[in-house]
């Protein structure tokens, strides 16, 4: 009696397992084909010196650390791109959080039509990247751009928003302009989660506006801000399309980002791809992002309030 029961339970468990794998199989297949195999392949290829897609299978592969040594000792463009990308990411993430928090405090007021204002602030993040860069180029880039002509008309000359020293800042600012509304909506939701009683209790205790902001609002939304900053960093460290379309990395690699260096290994005109080298770069980027995220989490985690536990 007991035996058949346990046997039946065991077969139920087996059944559950089978169904589990059946239902997750689309992801398993996709993960294996489009993530796992490619990752292993690129790790292996990173130690080779292949250049053409069509020949890398027919020629015997030689394994060496050449790519990695070259990247760290000779490739000043790659090192430059790491610096650019981190500068970009720090401005993008912390500027975004600062801007979004200030905006959220403003948009949190109970005004008539507040939902329309919020939607308008969010709207720029919906502009597709190719359209956005077309608009920004006509507005800002070159002497014939609208803003340059306004500058000229009021007597300001020689302001080049896309020069060696300003281009990166310009590109980040435009990214911030487009994305800050979307971050603001998330901060707004966090603000609405701050208990009213806390605020009221502080008012009774005579706490001023700033005190309440620093000692109640900020700690209460800190876990939300931390989430925004972590996902923000993972995203910003992979910045590609908007920079590629606005500057292409110019002038003199002042705006080249990590992901752009990898894709620049592909030469569209002759179909040549510095395959092994691109893979090695991609893996370094992967490790940099992983390492940075872990360190950042460790540093920030202690300062975040997750509620009483």
């Amino acid at each position, binding site marked *: 009696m007991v035996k058949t029961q346990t046997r039946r339970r065991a077969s139920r468990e087996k059944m559950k397992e089978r169904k589990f794998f059946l239902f997750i199989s689309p992801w398993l297949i996709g993960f294996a084909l489009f993530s796992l195999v490619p990752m292993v392949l690129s790790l292996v290829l990173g130690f080779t010196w292949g250049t053409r897609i069509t020949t890398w299978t027919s020629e015997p592969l030689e394994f060496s650390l050449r790519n990695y040594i070259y990247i760290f000792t000779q490739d000043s463009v790659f090192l430059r791109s790491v610096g650019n990308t981190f500068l970009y990411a720090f401005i993008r993430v912390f500027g975004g959080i600062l801007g979004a928090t200030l905006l959220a405090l403003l948009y949190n007021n109970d005004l008539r039509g507040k*939902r329309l204002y919020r939607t308008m602030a969010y709207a720029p993040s919906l*502009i597709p990247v190719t359209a956005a860069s*077309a608009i920004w180029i006509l507005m800002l880039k*070159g002497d014939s751009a*609208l803003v340059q002509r306004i500058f000229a008309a009021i007597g300001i000359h020689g302001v080049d928003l896309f020069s060696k020293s300003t281009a990166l800042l310009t590109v980040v600012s435009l990214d911030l302009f487009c994305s800050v509304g979307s971050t603001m909506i998330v901060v707004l939701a966090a603000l609405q989660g701050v208990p009213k009683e806390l605020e009221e209790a502080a008012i009774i205790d005579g706490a001023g506006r700033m005190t309440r902001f620093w000692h109640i609002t900020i700690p209460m939304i800190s876990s939300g801000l931390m989430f*925004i900053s972590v996902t923000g960093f993972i995203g910003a460290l992979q910045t590609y399309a908007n920079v590629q379309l606005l500057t292409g990395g110019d002038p003199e690699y002042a705006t080249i980002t990590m992901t752009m260096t*990898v894709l620049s290994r592909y030469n569209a005109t002759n179909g040549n791809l510095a*395959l092994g080298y691109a*893979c090695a770069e991609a893996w370094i*980027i992967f490790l940099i992002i992983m390492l940075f995220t872990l360190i950042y989490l460790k540093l920030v985690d202690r300062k975040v309030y997750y509620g009483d536990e």
Partner: protein
Amino acid sequence: MHRMAVKPGKAVHSAAYRVRRITARTVLYIVTIALSVIFFVPFLFMVYGSLQTTSDTVTSWPLVAPSFANIGNYAEAMRVMDFWNALGNTMLILCTSTLLQMASSVLVAYGFARFKNKYTEPFFLLLLSTMMLPWIVTMVPNYVIFAELGFIGSSSEFVRRLPLILPAISGSAFNIYMLRNFMRGIPKAIDEAAELDGCSSLGILIRILVPNMKPILATMLIFAVTGSWSDYVGPSIYLTDKSLFTLALSIGQFSGSTTSTEKQLQMAGCTLYTLPLLVLLFSAQKVFMKGIVTTSVKE
């Protein structure tokens, strides 16, 4: 009683207090509205530019009044960017990849939510860790694999598009995570009752769980659609043939600084390309606002 005590209190505020309060409100309105309009400047400029007569007036200062007489710019832009073909290409990839991604996400989330066993946890952690995987690591080898399999130079147009569609089979890790949490919130007793009535596992998912998740599925659908509509990186890597260009690519090719396309046509093209998203945003404001919070930062 309590209320009564508060309300008369307000009435005794001095005139000076009221004036101060009204001024503060007015300033608040002005600042909020001004900022919202500033956020709308790219759209305003785009439409303004699209209704100019010549390329030079698009960026000239002082501004030149736009005129609806130039509405023909839109027809000309459509011709230059091969609009209908590009729209068809975009929609083909959008519909197939979105459907595949959503269907997979729902199925996989169901597996994780309802069939707990000793493998569930480790596989779920693996799924979550893929969210941290940079696209650049898999992009190069994926390109190589598709090239080796003959997808990239294939004579069939459909096969050449497949690299942009097939990866959707893994679903979206984030959507799976959200859906699994949502499904766990639906009482299991409902499933069990249906099971006793002879409903299959798939039947339970389709007839009971999915109808209960319509709002969250609508949110995910909207973000998948806008994401695919705007996607530039994927198509720019896989679609080299002009006849396969999506809208993102055809806008991209005439919006560079080296382009010879006239500026008013560029802006007309951008307007045509962006307007559907704007219409979607304003007609589904609530879904968007909720969605941004639940799905948080996209990209």
